[in-house]
């Protein structure tokens, strides 16, 4: 058994909340840079250049990349030989979010009840997903999620007979409807298979996989490439104002499913696809 103390979890989550909101991962920065070089529309190019400038200002002036610093989505991969000491891990994570959003000058965007809508004042609670794994590792990933793009996400319960064409139409429909609302260029996460909630979770996890990476399954990889091409031919463009860059990536994660079903979840993310992770 290896012990991990709650204090180190609080510290890590706090730092990751801040890091994710001030600096994008290398693959996202590169995707933006490449798009600014290849975008065909003049206005689109100017928007992409301003987005690059926005990233520079965020880093140099210590100001969040986007004012919607998101609801904190946290992925915990917990080795079964790890013992958490000093409290409950969920409380430690929420404490880390509280400290990160307060000390990091991040916006508090969470209401305690979906209908009463009173702001909790510290961006808690987080949405936490735990996965068990073999060994004594512990990895925590913080992925703050903005709702301009979250609101445009969809789950489709297709029939097996709908097949690959049905899946592609579902993804394209979600992207088309998202249009300018989701702050394009988008990052499209797709969850294929499993059950209703598994598909949605896979779609969110797909957003963590870097831009430019691909599924190991050849038929899924081919679908990722085809969808990205077709989305970029849509003309939606940067800011929804026209152009050849509508998405940076379509990442598909798939899982086994039931003989009667073909669940497809499309989690739309904006160009501010934030995630920061750490081994503890």
């Amino acid at each position, binding site marked *: 058994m290896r012990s991990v103390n709650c204090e180190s979890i609080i510290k890590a989550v706090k730092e990751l909340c801040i890091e994710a909101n001030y600096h994008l991962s290398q693959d996202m920065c590169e995707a933006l840079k490449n798009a600014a070089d290849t975008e065909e529309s003049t206005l689109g190019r100017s928007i992409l250049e301003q*987005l690059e400038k926005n990233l520079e200002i965020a880093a140099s002036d210590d100001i969040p990349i*986007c004012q919607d610093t998101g609801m904190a989505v946290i992925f915990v991969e917990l080795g079964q030989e790890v013992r958490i000491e000093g409290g409950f891990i969920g409380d430690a994570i929420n404490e880390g979010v509280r400290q990160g959003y307060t000390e990091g000058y991040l916006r508090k965007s969470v209401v305690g009840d979906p209908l009463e809508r009173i702001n909790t004042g510290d961006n808690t609670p987080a949405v936490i997903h735990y996965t068990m794994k073999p060994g004594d590792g512990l990895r925590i990933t913080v992925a703050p999620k903005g709702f301009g793009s979250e609101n445009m996400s969809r789950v489709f319960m297709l029939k097996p007979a709908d097949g690959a064409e049905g899946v592609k139409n579902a993804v394209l429909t979600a992207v088309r409807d998202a249009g300018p609302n989701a702050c394009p260029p988008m990052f499209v996460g797709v969850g294929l298979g499993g059950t209703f909630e598994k598909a949605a979770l896979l779609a969110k996890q797909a957003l963590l996989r870097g831009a430019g990476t691909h599924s190991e399954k050849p038929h899924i990889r081919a679908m990722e490439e085809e969808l990205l091409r077709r989305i970029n031919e849509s003309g939606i463009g940067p*800011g929804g104002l026209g152009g050849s860059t509508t998405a940076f990536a379509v990442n598909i994660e798939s899982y086994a499913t039931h003989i009667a079903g073909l669940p497809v979840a499309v989690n739309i993310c904006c160009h501010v696809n934030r995630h920061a992770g750490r081994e503890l």
Partner: protein
Amino acid sequence: MEYRLSSPFDPEELKRLRAGDLVYISGCVYVARDAAHKRMQEALDAGKELPFDISGQTIYYMGPSPAREGRVIGSAGPTTASRMDRYTPALLDLGLRAMIGKGKRSPEVHEAMLRNGAVYFAAIGGAGALLSKAITACETVAWEDLGAEALRKLTVEDFPAIVVIDTEGKDLYLREDKKVKIF
């Protein structure tokens, strides 16, 4: 075309703008998003006055991140305008003249805009750090309890935006030339 404009806008100047024009806005804009719109609607429903004279004014749909010490504001980019669509026609009929946000508007908002000669601008979504540089002053006007959603008044200088819906009802998102051709 590119224009430098000052807000509150001259109605004649707004008429010149066409969907697709680039503008740099200086002057005063009010800031309100979901919760402040709900409160404005509640005030109107109760027969009360709004906390500011909306006639001729501009509303920026935005909820900033907190300002660091010594700074005017935190990150300050646009939020999705369609969530305010339900409240917007009534505000337009009261004289609201321009809106800054991102994303599509409803047919009801389109109609009320045409009726009132109003303009809808898009600011670049997700460029909150960059856009904060164009904000030189920020004060809370009402509903401080709403935190990031309080009603605010900003002074802006050369705030960049794009005309999306002009006074003739032309909508850049529904552009004919580059029809979204996903199917």
